[in-house]
């Protein structure tokens, strides 16, 4: 927080004037201040990155720059001229081109059209297809992309589509290129290809905003970083001058000093019954999914709380979704549950093995707002029984009652609509739904996000006591001290790989932060952090 007062690093010598300068920009949505007096600038010929956890305001800045959102306060200047964009087209005219994470191109049209759409060469009032394809071929050649401009966009891989989107940006002669998570679904070779293109553009004096969750990539390609937290500016730094560990601390927002007392508390809670012979419940080998996470080996013991630590996008949620049967793992993955080989292809299969996954996306993948507390709680149990064997009304009442009591759901009214409950109580209802099926493995993805401190503590306590009673728990949280406090063992994810899998006996916040940041910390984990396992072959 103090960093805002700190002086900004110097402008690059070659281009001392920023092409984009946002000053004191605020953007509010009902109930949320998404950006709070943030400064942000970009220089020609530099790769700049926005860093921050979920809700930090990265995408809000991008949307302000691309004209999707208007700004409430502050100014944006492009090349020294104040601007206000009327929609995406306005930003494009100002020379700001964007390649979105989900590649917003049109799969049903040709590659050439996707590059040229809106600026097609015309002759006698008709689109001049030949000229259009020729121009597209030229641009593709610049990117060393050897594909037929007349082919359908949808027939190409996501990596190629990404480069096509960049070709479109080059054609508008963009001075500013925004790449929002461009590498999230590319493999190593494809990333290298993208970086080559980025470096070329950089030499041409294009200002590039490169947003990514992958720290390695950030350190490889960027020159300058702006760190945001909760909609506020933490600071602007030169990448080479900011250590990874410092960056992670700035993103997460914990200064070392304030963490000291917490880590002592961790030591007290860690592993009292220090026996390594916990019977394993789930043994996953080579669990991975191409383009999502590298194959991972993970063992979860009975009654064990395994914390998944890592930054957003590190693969922690993706791993949880594979375990919960939400996403399907690649062939070659083997999972045994209680000793028996099992396939986790659908959530239903997972549930039948008593594995419950509680999504981080509470609103869309969790609670059903228009149903009552009771209906939400019995949902999974009823589904598991089959819809023809209705749970008797009396049993429903009992169940709901008991969970409302144990979890202290407020208001304690089984007939209240869930959408009227606070976030914390919605989370409790969601927990109750999964507890009702008596899971043996409960996967909690960000169960404490966006809920108040009281409810947070209750949920933490609950996780603790569930594990005491023999339930295995996979616990994911962006709050690092929470993971440390609850977990017996911590699996650290970084850049879609499992980089460490260690017992939590006396692990400190610093050590864990170091693992999250670059994986080269303390007692060497079981898995080598540097090797890249071959994908999908289930080795």
């Amino acid at each position, binding site marked *: 927080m103090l960093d805002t007062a700190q002086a900004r690093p110097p402008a690059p010598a070659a281009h001392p004037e920023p092409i984009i300068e946002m000053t004191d920009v605020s953007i509010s949505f009902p109930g949320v201040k998404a950006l709070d007096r943030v400064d942000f600038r970009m220089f020609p010929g530099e790769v700049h990155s926005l860093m921050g956890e979920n809700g930090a305001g990265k995408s809000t800045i991008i949307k302000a720059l691309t004209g999707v959102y208007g700004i409430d306060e502050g100014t944006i200047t492009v090349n020294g001229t104040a601007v206000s964009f009327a929609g995406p*087209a306005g930003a494009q005219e100002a020379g700001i081109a964007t390649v979105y994470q989900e590649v917003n191109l049109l799969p049903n*049209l040709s590659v050439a059209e996707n590059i040229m759409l*809106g600026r097609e060469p015309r002759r006698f009032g*008709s*689109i001049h297809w030949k000229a259009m394809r020729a121009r597209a071929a030229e641009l593709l050649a610049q990117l060393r992309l050897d*594909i037929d401009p007349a082919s359908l966009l949808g027939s190409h891989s996501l990596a190629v589509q990404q480069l096509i989107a960049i070709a479109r940006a080059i054609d508008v002669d963009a001075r500013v290129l925004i790449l929002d998570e461009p590498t999230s679904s590319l493999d190593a070779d494809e990333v290298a290809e993208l970086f080559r293109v980025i470096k*070329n553009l950089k030499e041409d004096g294009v200002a590039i905003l490169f947003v990514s969750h992958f720290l390695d990539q950030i350190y490889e390609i960027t020159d300058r970083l702006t760190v945001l937290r909760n909609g506020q500016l933490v600071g602007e730094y030169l990448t080479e001058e900011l250590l990874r560990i410092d960056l992670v601390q700035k993103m997460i927002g914990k200064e070392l000093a304030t963490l000291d007392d917490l880590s002592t508390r961790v030591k007290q809670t860690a592993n009292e019954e220090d026996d390594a012979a916990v019977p394993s419940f789930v043994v996953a080998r080579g669990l991975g999914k191409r383009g999502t996470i590298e194959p991972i080996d993970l063992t979860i013991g009975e009654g064990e709380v395994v914390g998944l630590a890592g930054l957003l996008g590190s693969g922690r949620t993706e791993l949880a979704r594979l375990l919960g049967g939400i996403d399907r793992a690649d062939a070659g993955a083997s999972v045994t549950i209680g000793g028996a080989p099992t396939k986790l292809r659908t959530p239903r299969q997972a549930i039948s093995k008593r594995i419950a996954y509680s999504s981080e996306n509470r609103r869309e993948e969790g609670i059903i707002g228009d149903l009552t507390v009771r209906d939400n709680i019995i949902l999974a149990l009823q589904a598991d029984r089959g819809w023809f064997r209705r749970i008797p009304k009396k049993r429903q009442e009992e169940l709901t009652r008991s969970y409302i009591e144990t979890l202290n759901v407020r208001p304690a009214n089984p007939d209240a609509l869930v959408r009227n409950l606070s976030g914390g109580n919605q989370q409790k209802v969601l927990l109750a739904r999964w507890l009702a099926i008596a899971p043996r493995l409960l996967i909690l993805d960000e169960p404490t996000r966006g809920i108040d401190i009281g409810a947070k503590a209750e949920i933490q306590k609950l996780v603790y006591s569930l594990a005491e009673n023999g339930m295995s728990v996979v616990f994911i949280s962006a709050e690092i001290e929470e993971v440390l406090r609850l977990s017996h063992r911590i699996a650290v994810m970084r850049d879609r790989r499992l980089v460490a899998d260690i017992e939590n006996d006396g692990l400190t916040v610093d050590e864990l932060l170091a693992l999250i940041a670059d994986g080269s910390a303390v007692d060497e984990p079981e898995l080598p952090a540097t090797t890249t396992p071959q994908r999908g072959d289930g080795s």
Partner: protein
Amino acid sequence: MSTLAPERAPRSEQPAPRRSASRPALVERVRDVFTSPKSGPVLVTAILFVAVFAVGGVRYPAFLSGQVFLNLFVDNAYLIVLAVGMTFVILTGGIDLSVGAVVALSGMIAASLLQSGWSPGVVIPLILVITSVLGLLVGLMIHVFEVQPFIATLAAMFLARGLCYVISQNSISITEPTFVALAVTRIPLGGGLSITPSVVIVLVVIAVAVWVLHFTRFGRTVYAIGGGEHSGMLMGLPVARTKVIVYVISGFCSGLAGVLFTFYTLSGYPLSAIGTELDAIAAVVIGGTLLTGGFGFVLGSVLGVLVLGIIQTIITFEGTLSSWWTRIFIGGLLLVFIILQKVLTSRRR
């Protein structure tokens, strides 16, 4: 910027991982064309059309004549125009249920105004303006209030059908000389073949529609909306305007189809053209346009109408079958085509 590097073509094998180089290029290309959601369904329809025509020719010697083919256009002129308008709408991922009722309304307006002595030179443009405005209102309703196209056009359908009854409860016949002349005139093509003036209008409509869809920015934006409305918007395309105009085009086409329909029937009747919107949608779908939008051709829709027409013709030639068998065949065909589309689009994922 990097220079051209012809010796390096590292990406060529990446886009299509399952394509093996050992396969003969022709086989591969043919397979590609048939499994492409763009061209696959149209080709299947074309083959189907030729097959049905051949079957008819084998069974009845009289079937395999140029006039039978031309009569497909003569008899279905209005339906082709409707299908062309519907193609625009469906390409954006929308639907227009109002077209049948608008055809009837156009007929009623024409018949009643001609009856009270208006000149065809005024009546026909007036109809086209009225139906275009109706399309505009529907388009605005869909765009501004974000009403589902299904509901918005359903409302327009009831409105148009209701207005027919406001004009008259009964059939009004048309005796105006120009209309009668247009109805009975045959344009000889030599060799004993002839077409009606309606067919000429239809061919012009088809040509204009093809040009608009394939050679104008508006047309490409129509496809873009079907491919991804949000993406199109982020690419800076005029999505909103295009979405509205598409319904204006459909309205205009319905009006024109209504006029052609009155050339054909020489009367206005409030109950006419009931269910025609569904024929038009069926023709568009059989013609290979994806109901979700983004893929399809005007010529495909024309082919779709011709397939419907030729099934009808074959059943007429058969003589013993009830004409309702046409419906059963169309139903079966639709089912096959929708499944085909599903298969083709899911294979591409």
